[in-house]
């Protein structure tokens, strides 16, 4: 049961019950929609980018506690980041939740609370849905997002 407490930390419940930035952006410069066919969850990510800097972020949708909290935490940390930093953050976050390699979690800030996902491989897609959608919003070559 310790793994469970590790997965469902208070920060995650906080962001699940009171998600931050859960709204569309009126003047979004980038947006994309992501879908997790496993559970039917959808998330939409909106970005307002100016001069290569992410000025504002919002999201709609979500799903389970992990997917919703992950989207909420992601939007919080992205504000003020440069667009070219996103690819690196994506990789760090992805590898942290899959446990593929040890990751220096300090640079991920609060997102570290999602590290517990690595003990639950079936839930990795929940945690990464918003991130895949973010990547697609910034680079349409990634196409329609599906976690499958």
């Amino acid at each position, binding site marked *: *049961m310790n*793994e*469970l407490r590790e*997965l*469902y930390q208070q920060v995650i*419940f906080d962001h699940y*019950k009171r998600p931050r930035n859960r709204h569309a952006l009126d003047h979004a410069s980038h947006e994309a929609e992501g879908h997790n066919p*496993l*559970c*039917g*969850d959808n998330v939409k990510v909106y970005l307002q980018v100016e001069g290569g800097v992410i000025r504002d972020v919002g999201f709609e949708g979500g*799903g*389970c*506690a*992990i*997917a919703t909290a992950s989207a909420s935490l992601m939007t919080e940390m992205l504000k003020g980041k440069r667009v070219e930093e996103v690819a690196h953050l994506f990789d760090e976050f992805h590898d942290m939740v899959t446990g593929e390699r040890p990751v220096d979690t300090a640079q991920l800030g609060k997102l570290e609370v999602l590290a517990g996902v690595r003990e*639950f491989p*079936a*839930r990795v897609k*929940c945690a990464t849905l918003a991130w895949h959608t973010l990547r697609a919003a910034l680079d349409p070559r990634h196409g329609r997002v599906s976690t499958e």
Partner: protein
Amino acid sequence: MKVDREVVGAPGAVPFDAARLREDFPLLRERVRGRPLVYLDNAATTQKPEAVIEAIASYYRHDNANIHRGVHALSQRATDLYEAARRTVQRFLGAASPREVVFVRGTTEAINLVAQSFARPRLGPEDDIVVSALEHHSNIVPWQLVCAATGASLRVIPVDDAGEIELGMLDKLVGPRTRLVAVTHVSNAIGTILPLERIIALAHERKVPVLVDGAQAVSHLPLDVAALDCDFYAFSGHKVLGPTGIGALYAKGRHLEAMPPYQGGGDMIRTVTFGKTDFADVPAKFEAGTPNIAGAIGLGAALEYVERVGRAQIARHERDLLDYATARLAAIPGLRIYGTAREKAAIVSFALEGMHPHDVGTILDAGGVAIRAGHHCAMPLMQRYGIPGTARASFALYNTREEIDALVEGIEEARRLFA
């Protein structure tokens, strides 16, 4: 006759005892995350008794050869075992002849076979096929494919809030251009047992054939396809204690005779020249290539096991589990059960207020309880209820009331965590 024997128990049978039956299933001794496994995902797939595992291993150890061709002794043994399995399926379903049983990979392939070989040549732009809103994707998508290819349309019998199909609508939907009615026997997502007798009677009055998706029914309900008078009945081995990759399609002999082959290859021909090929008789006409011989033998062993236990006894035991689970779950605050039809199989689909089914599934798993969370490959039905999915506990002959207690305990843990 067969059903009667199962009611009183096969010769030498012992009274139904789930605790004893569990000993026949080696996997049920597994531990998950340090706890005894509570396996409540039987609608996805069932565990296998030793008799099935042993039948497959024994075939590979002692009898493996290709069928229907060798003059040598092993080939004859393999052929005999394969055809004996077909007769077991025939008896189990209540089919008139083994010629009416086609081995396929599973329910999905059986439905695709009927869609492509039976329905497609009969469909034109004005025609339609009728399904219900309870269907699994495997009884929706094959029909959409043939509709797209022919211009025909798909009509859907709606369901009410309880999860029962609206029979009155069936009367309106089955019209002069309806070429087939395709419905499930039991809803995999919410457990509704469909009133097949009435559906089939109405369709047949209008000369419309009926296909039944039996994937969720075969291991739980006594069955007699001849009495039911359905035209097609499809099921998968792995949901009835058998191996994956094998299933069967029952079809009335006259349909099979009239249908063109589904796939071409070896084993389905009589003679081949480059000018002309004569096809084999049914059912070989539909079994191109070397089939899943070991799978068929394993399926035969699974059905014999179910017959030994007795389908009526299994149905009674599962009814008790369903009633017990429904009562215990309904008493949990904030829990809603989806699917409250009067006739239900042992499936309880539910949602907890403020919690996503995936979270419920993960928390239960941490306690060793395996359930399914999601849309159950029935997205149109989930849309009907306006939900992304549910958590689903589905029971089999080897489940016990104690396991339902473990489920309830896990749900309480989830509620405490999310409080």
